[in-house]
């Protein structure tokens, strides 16, 4: 069941909170929230929150009209702060699992079941939805060349720093158990966080796994990642991840 109403949770149920960080996504949000509302996960209460990252369009109004709980940041703080805010919100409301679903429509809410099933059946603390694990070609259709190249390079960086082989380390479609979510709520990079946070988690003993999922191309708008951003992204993540390692 998917709901935003206050409900008493039966003892055998677990609570899954979906965090939807959104910045100027008024055109994509309706589809994402509708798909979330249609979700039904066995013995699980599904809750969601839209974190409006200082949008200048009608994102907040659209989200509220769709029955979403909305947490609005005073101004644009970036994906890192938005996601962390959503995690803090979820943990305050006793979530057992927290999952990030981007508001641009690339993440398909119905694929959440695959992530949820993997995290419940394995010893993973975090499960990352990978668009490349099954088919690199299919995954390429959902991203841009700079991002794909950057992702490959970052995959090598993750391997060098942690020994883990991740095919899609930049994927924001990921589920955390409560223990990992609590760590994230206190340790989350404020820019280009996706890869750095995985390295930090693994360096702190958390188990990160991948599972293949399908993703879509963004329906409206465009990605803010271009070649310049990609180069900076790779440098920043590599340097920050190395720093995490030597700080321990």
């Amino acid at each position: 069941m998917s709901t935003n109403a206050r409900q008493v949770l039966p003892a055998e149920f677990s609570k899954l909170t979906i965090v939807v960080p959104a910045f100027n996504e008024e055109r994509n949000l309706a589809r994402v929230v509708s798909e979330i509302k249609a979700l039904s996960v066995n013995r699980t209460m599904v809750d969601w929150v839209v974190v409006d990252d200082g949008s200048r369009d009608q994102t907040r109004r659209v989200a509220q009209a769709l029955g979403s709980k909305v947490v609005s940041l005073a101004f644009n703080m970036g994906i890192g702060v938005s996601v962390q805010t959503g995690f803090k919100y979820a943990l305050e409301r006793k979530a057992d699992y927290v999952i990030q679903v981007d508001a641009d429509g690339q993440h398909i809410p119905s694929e959440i079941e695959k992530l949820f099933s993997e995290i419940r059946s394995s010893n993973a603390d975090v499960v990352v939805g990978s668009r490349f694990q099954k088919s690199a070609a299919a995954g390429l259709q959902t991203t841009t060349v700079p991002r794909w190249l950057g992702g490959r390079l970052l995959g090598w960086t993750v391997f060098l720093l942690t020994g883990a082989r991740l095919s899609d380390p930049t994927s924001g479609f990921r589920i955390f158990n409560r223990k990992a979510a609590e760590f994230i709520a206190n340790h989350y990079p404020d820019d280009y966080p996706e890869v750095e946070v995985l390295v930090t988690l693994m360096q702190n003993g958390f188990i990160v796994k991948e599972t293949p999922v399908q993703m879509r191309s963004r329906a409206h708008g465009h990605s803010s990642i271009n070649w310049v951003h990609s180069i900076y992204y790779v440098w920043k993540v590599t340097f920050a991840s190395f720093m995490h390692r030597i700080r321990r």
Partner: protein
Amino acid sequence: MKNLVWVDFLQSHRIEIVSLVACLTLMGLVFELVRRNAIKEKYSFLWFLTGLSLTALTLKRDWLTSLAATLGVYYPPTALFLVLGFFVIVILIHYSMVLSKLLTQNQKLAQRLALLEAKLEDSNDMKQEDDAEKAA
């Protein structure tokens, strides 16, 4: 004899040695500050770019000579200071932009907090009036 060669080398390459030590010290200092979380990684990027550029120009004398010639500088090591000055200006402008953004955000936060407090007070006042009416 060996000592004399070394002394000769040090004396003739004084500016390069001083420049190299200064660059490495700068980069080492920034590295340590990032390690201690005193500087965020993203703000260290320009400092490392500065240090690496100056180190490269110090070690590759012909690059420095070409640059000096292009800039019309007679004594090549002076070009190092020009490059340093350029980077420092870029970093200062960057920090001016960061500070400006922080100032704007601070103002918005202060206003939002004040308005929220006013809203809370209004809400409490209305609740008290309702309670008083119900009691009457």
